């Protein structure tokens, strides 16, 4: 589902390499935890996979067509992201000016899903993330756990092949974090999507199928 090969990236300001010759493969339906020290380049790796940053060399192939996102231009990367990738962020990033249902429907709009399908699909997902009845609420009135549930629903609504999550429980209290993590893993496994979860939490990492560690010498 995701094949990273020979990936190298230099530090943005310094000339020293951040990482070089990285290789990573995630099979369909596999959930992988990415751990490592702060500043080691976990987020940069995630950004490269999402096509938000361009590596100095190497290839990143995503999805059944195995398109190399490194070779795509900015517009094509956006299309690939819209169709194949779902995101969950530490800071939730729920748009404050859109209602909960609208937030969840944004990926559907970006994928060009007919409007008639939106309501049933967002409704179904809201129920699955335990937010039935929240459709017309505004983000400002939601708690952190609820916001992250909205973000999870948004990440899954367009049935992406790959979920990228960056510290998804980092901003939540321990109890909520457990709930949200369980929910995320369940909902990812359900459609047999793959996931790469960046985390500092051993507890989170333990719940995944596999753990890879990014060190200065590469992936382990």
């Amino acid at each position, binding site marked *: 589902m995701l094949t990273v090969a020979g990936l190298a990236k230099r530090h943005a300001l310094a000339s020293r390499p951040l990482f070089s010759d990285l290789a990573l493969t995630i099979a369909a339906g596999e959930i992988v935890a990415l751990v490592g020290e702060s500043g080691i380049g976990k987020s940069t790796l995630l950004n490269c996979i999402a096509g*938000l940053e361009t590596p100095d060399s190497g290839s990143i192939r995503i999805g059944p067509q195995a398109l190399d996102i490194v070779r795509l231009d900015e517009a094509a990367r956006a299309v690939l*992201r*819209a169709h194949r990738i779902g995101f969950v962020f530490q800071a939730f990033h729920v748009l404050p000016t859109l209602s909960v249902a609208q937030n969840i429907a944004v*990926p559907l*709009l*970006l994928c060009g899903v007919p409007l008639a399908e939106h309501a049933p699909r967002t409704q179904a997902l809201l129920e699955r993330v335990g937010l039935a009845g929240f459709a017309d609420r505004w983000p400002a009135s939601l708690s952190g756990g609820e916001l992250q549930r909205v973000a999870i629903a*948004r990440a899954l609504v367009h049935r992406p092949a790959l979920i990228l999550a960056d510290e998804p429980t980092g901003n939540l209290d321990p109890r909520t974090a457990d709930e949200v993590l369980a929910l995320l893993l369940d909902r990812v496994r359900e459609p047999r999507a793959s996931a790469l979860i960046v985390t500092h939490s051993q507890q989170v990492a333990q719940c995944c199928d596999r753990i890879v560690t990014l060190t200065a010498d590469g992936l382990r």
Partner: protein
Amino acid sequence: MKTLAWWLIRAQFRTRRAATLLSMLAIALGVALGYAIHLINAAALADFARAMQTVQGDPDAVIAARDSAGSVALASINDIARDPAVMVIAPVIETRVRVDQARLLVRLIGIDVFSAAAVMPRLLPRHSERALTGSIFDGGVYASPALRDKLGLQDGAPVTLRRGDQQWSTRIAGDLPAAGADDLLLVADIAWVQEHFGPDDAVSEGRVRLSPDTDPARWRATLTPQLPAGLLLRAADDDNARVSNLSRAYRVNLNVLALVALLTGAFLVFATQLTAVAQRSTQFALLGVLGLSPRMRLLQVLLEGLAIGVPGALLGLGLGYALALAFTQLLGGDLGGGYFATSAPLLVPQPLPALAFLALGCGASLAGACYPAYLNRMQPLAQALKTGFAQRPGAARAPHTRLWLPSLLALAALALTQLPPLFELPLAGYAAIALVLVIGISCAPVVTQYVFGYLARPGLPAPQQIALQNVAQAPLMAQVAASGLIVSFALTASMVIMVSSFRVAVDHWLDAVLPAPLYLRSKATPLPQELLQALLRPDAPFARIERTAHASLTIDPQRPNVALMVREIERGNPGARLPFTGAVMTPPSDDLVVVWISEPLHEIYGIQPGQTLRLPLLGGAVEVFVGGVWRDYSRQFGALVISRDDYLRLGGDFQPTDLALWPLPADAAGEAAGAWLAPYTSRYALELADAAEIRQLSLSIFDKSFAVTYALEAAAMLIGLFGLAVTLAASVWLRAGELATLGALGFSRRMLSRAVMLEGALIAAVGLLIGLACGIAIAAVLTQVVNPQAFHWRMPLDVPWSAVVFGALATLAAAVVASHYAARQATRLPVAQVLASAQ
């Protein structure tokens, strides 16, 4: 994708209601002003053209004298009538008369119904059953409905028509059913008009209808060289061009002012959209991460600009129509410019101009949204998602490298002011003004960085330190906040300076052209002989009397007539009566006739002092010497003065219309003089005014004609201030995290508020400083380039420092008040929440 765009626009409008509404209003204001000016002017021109169509009909050519005192000999009319290409030639004799004792001067048109039917059907009279005369051939006059109403004229009623000493006692024989609602006209048979008012064996003009198989242009070209020297052959198009030329420069000037309002509106859209982009950079970054294409991130901002522009422009059209309606009711069709003396014209909106103004409004808001859209497109997604808006994606440049652009633009602006007018309009001058504004705005970041970087030295209290640092570090936001103010203050200051310079110049000029204490005039008709004789008697209580006769000449049929003034002026010392702009030249020979031309005449026709030219005078072409150029602010289309002696020498008939009177020294107040003149003024409806009255009236007309300008300036200033407030408020939100951190570190709300207000005041101060510099530069362009090219008069630049400085201080105070609004936003920040949501 459309749905998403629509969601975002709606969200934007909901969360930034005030800023969006203000931008919309600014666009609406610009469109409204431009559209109102267009509507009023189109209506006034149409009205004027229609009135002329009534009187003149639709001839293929008009043969007329070049000299208003001249006429077309009957022989010339009959010669042209015999041309096989001529179907009909309709002669008219036109004059102005007073009806009974009414003060109103009315056009009396003598027509020949045989030919008028073919060329000027709207002038055909309808004979009344109650008329006591048999038909139009038996005498009797026909009055237009408007005139009948105004003077209460009844069919069959006896009336006496007077022109100077000449008079005709006749009866109202009917009306003019096809005359317009505003036309004040009398029509009579041409022979009866000639019998009582002249000219002998001649007519005023002949209007020609050609055979349909004749090419009118070629016919005119063939005939023109064969015409006697004093006559000209003009096309109906010429008249339209003349009407249009009459108010063209004034109109363009007003439209440029409307464009200024639109420009300010565009700046406000720029400010709103830039802050909107900055505010939502995280949101846009998220959407980008989720898969919104870069193109869509660009388009979304443009679309939002359009979403402001379209309703704004539509509102502007409605507002413009209402404004036009109100203005025409209050000021008439010329916005106080004094070009068309008609009542309120009918406004008829046409679809095409409305669309054009709609497009202009949308274009302005699109232009304002362009740079923000570009910035939004260029935001690095991952970084923006984390740390928010990047002011300058790409490498930062040092301030000095950005100085070359303003310097280059300044050179270009200077070059533009040296260019001659294009299409007889000071287009290059206007372009130079636009460039000055661009220079001012592009200078803003550099000046801001230098000034504030210098000021923000250590040792200041914390709030001041923070404010200064903030401005110096974020020049783009400062530029945005200041740009609206720079533009609006520059334009306002320039207008104030220009109008003040003009007013001072007019004031001086009035001193020079009003040497006598008393003035008497009879409008367009000659003064009565009875009065002129009486003035020569020793008992007349005057130390000195100078007589003037007014007439006009057609030099170019496509331009308005040039005024001709025959004055009792000393050939050897014209400087005693005329305010010359340069040296007065004496003719090489005493036999040569001398004329002194006005500045507009010199500018429009390129006539130089010291040259000789052939002037269409008294039915012939007369060789005259141009003795000098004098300043004239009242006759925009040119005037020339000839001495009475020269005029008589040419065989002219001196019929004075104006008198300049010096009462005897014992009668300084002019009371005895007024009493002596009273019987004449009442009997002949003459106007008597003293110099002070005329001066006051002239200046009040001057002020009235700039009334619209003042309104526009006020609007521009208001928009500029709104822009400042909106931008400051936005920048407060943008720095919410920073301010919240400061709050958490122990800054009180009052200190935060002070810092924001200080920031506003400092930005406003920079904006006003730059604006003032630009304003003076623009005023110089206006007085030295635009006015001479558009109106053909010059004036020295005279900066009213006290007014300008007062205006700047008032604006600064207003800016502080406006930034108070932004400061309140700062104090309302929910510190804890902001800190919690910040990373």
